[in-house]
């Protein structure tokens, strides 16, 4: 009996070894697709962003502006609203103290309104709590929580986590009521790693003593940066005389200035971003932690984390889009039947993924209008709160 079991186990392990050594043709096809254009060495296929402003009250306007500045950057570079979880602990734009209703500005010159006409805040007010933040990261939620409040990442997602507020040595304050510690975030990231909920994480934090918050991470593929060292404060950048409060923090302001020069097709790397760090400008020592990150920083594109650029290929023969009777067959076997729509070869696919700098005002609506005229692309409109496929 024991001999039979031993033999069975031996056969099983040999079977596994043999199959593991030969990479299947499908895997080779997938790998060559992702490496075909000599592009980024990252293996991600989709991008997500979690932007958290954890401070309440009118005098913390700058923290809301920090988070909204990152929101605008991330949307402009291509991540759609359905892939962004924005948590704002208080309402600044429609606050009765706000002299400019519906607007949030990040500079005293008031040249750019960060709130815009097309914004979706997923967690707001009292819903921004430590518990909800950790639930968002780990995905452990009540079944009735709607889709727009969930982080639906998989093992090929690059996640950008940005946190801002008041903090200290290994903690960050949420709404002046409770705290999250560096250990909590590290454990949450480890849960995400165990559940294969990310490919790579870029963690950015702008608070006082921010670098202590990433000192406890222990999961692989995390790149982290913070605005100040232990025992150092992070400072605000400029005050607005009409609003009466500071409107942006130094660290985030300089990062956003750098990001204004980055667009969807930019080849700027993370090393270029970190070269912007300067003690003279920040008045604090911003830090970077890259020991858990397996790729070199000068080969990691900024758009790997901030942008929603995905690889697309233009197929030369026209694609049949009829609902064929055998759905599981290979594309080559589908007969080219008479269709109401055939994709025109002269359609310029890259124009769908155009670098539109006005992402927050009307780009999605423009794309929708174009879609209404072309019914053949098969875009799914059924997601609530936003449209998919990388446009907004």
């Amino acid at each position: 009996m024991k001999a039979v079991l031993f033999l069975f186990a031996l056969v099983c392990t040999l079977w596994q070894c043999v199959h593991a050594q030969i990479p299947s043709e499908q895997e080779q096809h997938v790998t060559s697709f992702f490496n075909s254009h000599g592009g980024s060495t990252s293996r991600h296929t989709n991008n997500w962003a979690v932007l958290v402003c954890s401070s309440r009250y009118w005098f913390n306007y700058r923290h809301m502006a920090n988070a909204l500045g990152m929101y605008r950057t991330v949307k402009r570079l291509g991540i759609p609203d359905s892939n962004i979880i924005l948590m704002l602990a208080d309402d600044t734009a429609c606050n009765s103290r706000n002299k400019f209703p519906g607007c949030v500005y990040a500079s005293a010159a008031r040249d750019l309104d960060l709130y815009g006409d097309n914004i979706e805040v997923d967690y707001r007010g009292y819903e921004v709590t430590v518990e909800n933040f950790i639930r968002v990261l780990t995905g452990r939620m009540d079944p009735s929580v709607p889709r727009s409040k969930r982080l639906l990442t998989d093992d090929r997602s690059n996640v950008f986590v940005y946190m801002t507020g008041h903090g200290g040595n290994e903690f960050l304050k949420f709404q002046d009521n409770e705290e999250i510690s560096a250990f909590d975030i590290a454990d949450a990231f480890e849960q995400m790693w165990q559940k294969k909920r990310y490919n790579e994480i870029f963690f950015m934090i702008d608070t006082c003593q921010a670098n202590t918050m990433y000192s406890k991470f222990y999961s692989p593929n995390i790149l982290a940066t913070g605005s100040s060292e232990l025992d150092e404060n992070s400072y605000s950048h400029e005050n607005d005389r009409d609003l009466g409060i500071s409107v942006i923090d130094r660290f985030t302001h300089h990062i956003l200035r750098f990001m204004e020069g980055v667009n969807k097709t930019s080849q700027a790397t993370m090393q270029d971003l970190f070269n912007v760090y300067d003690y003279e400008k920040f008045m604090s020592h911003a830090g970077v932690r890259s020991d858990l990150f397996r790729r070199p920083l000068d080969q990691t594109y900024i758009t790997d984390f901030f942008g929603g650029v995905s690889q697309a290929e233009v197929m030369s023969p026209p694609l049949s889009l009829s609902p064929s009777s055998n759905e599981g067959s290979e594309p080559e076997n589908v007969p080219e039947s008479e269709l109401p729509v055939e994709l025109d070869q002269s359609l310029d696919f890259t124009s769908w993924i155009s670098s539109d700098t006005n992402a927050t005002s009307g780009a999605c609506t423009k794309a929708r209008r174009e879609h209404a005229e072309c019914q053949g692309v098969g875009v799914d409109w059924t997601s609530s709160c936003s449209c998919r496929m990388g446009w907004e």
Partner: protein
Amino acid sequence: MFWRNNILAVLLLCCTWCLATSEEFHEALTFRPLQDGRLATRFTFTTLLRGAYPRDPSTLQEEDESQHYAIFPLALGQVLREYAVTELHLTLNAGKWDYDHWGYPDEPGVGTGAELWAWMGESAARSVDERWKGLRNALSGQFCASLGSLDEQRTTSPELTFRPEGSLPQWGTTHQLRHGTLPSEHVCTENLTPFLKLLPCKSLTGIASLLNPHRLFDADWHGLGVHVRYLENEGIEVRLSFQSVFDPVRYSNGRRDWSLRSVFDRVIDRSCPIAHSSEIRVAIPKEETAVAITPDSYTTHAGFVYFNVSNASKPLDISMSWPDEQKFEYGSSQSRGRLSVSITNHMPITIQTSYLESMPWLLQFYLHSLQIYSNGVSRDDLISIVSYIPSVPHVRPTLFQAILTLPPKSTLHLSMDVIKPFLRYTEHPPDAQRGWDLPPAVLVPLLHSNSSTLDPGLSNPPSGFEQLRLPRRMYTPVLLVDLATPDFSMPYNVIIMSCTLIALIFGMVFNLLTRKFTLIRVSPEPK
């Protein structure tokens, strides 16, 4: 390329297709200049799905039949089918509606904050409470509002006050009402964005292109509403509305004149091709001063001026001015431990109204201390209590429904004692020193008691009452109550102090017990 060149053909196809599947979309904008110089506006976007029925809750166990919508908002339709909702009303308002100066609103739901109520049929498969939880979470994700926190501590069932505005289908099971309010909810652009995405033309063309959040959220009062109801013999109607009260005197230098450009900072460039009717109505003020309205292409009927947006020349900018006026000159309690409401009846007849007070458990009524005074005279016969469900702390709110009789041309004062219990320290919100918002009380005027049938919410009152224009519901302003807040830093202080004491005492006692003084002979130094 093919489609871009044949856009007209595509649009024609869309229009005929819409007619074939019998969905209709109507949009309207109404302006009403108010007596204190302000301007009340109301956007209404109505989509009617002909021949449709709400989902029978007894079929909740099975897979739902597939729904095909062309204009009807799919995201909202999916939520309604998933939870088998027959009637739904959601309003998100900010500001206080001044009934004295502004009259009655066109849409009655003007309570501050978020208010959600729904009529759902009972089902053995999934209970109404379970579906209510799913519904409010789904709507909170759809409209970016914190409706998920309308849990059982804030939900009541005031069936006398919130009658269904449509019809309830006869399935053999009764319908139940669930109602919750969040008076402290903010309204901002993130609530308007998904609202606009439910419209067929979004905010690109038609009347919806006037919805500019930077101007709307600057208004003195604004509120958006989503109302879904089932009309028998017609179908399911979704009405999206946005009401606001602007102050043109504030924008200009003391003049009441307004135009689409001055109020919304936008004009209508294109009309929505899918709309069956698209019109703008302006109420002519009933005063002596002359009023000029441009452009001239309007029709007049029953005190209103109508503009047809589809036919008007674009860009369309409507303006109203008072050319002879030089400048326009301009013209609300909480006692400690006592809740008072005062209601004034300006009419010459007796009015009966139902009075609903749903109070969170953190304010408990002493019903025996209820006092009614009419013009200074105590009149206990003017109130008759219909139902009183007392609160259970930490579990359930209070529900108090009564019928009040208001004598002609008099003011009624109603007051009762309340107690404010202590909350557990984990139940305080993060900004505990602000206090708690109390939901508004709701008054529904009923017909006079001489008529044998007391039918609240009758949409067609019998002859003789048309000119009275009784509103369907009135809301009182929200109140802010201060509860005793504990010292939140107390646990930290206690730990610090006790650790210090223990360290000192332990150190002293340990030294006393174990320290031994011994003499040491120090040898003399060698010379």
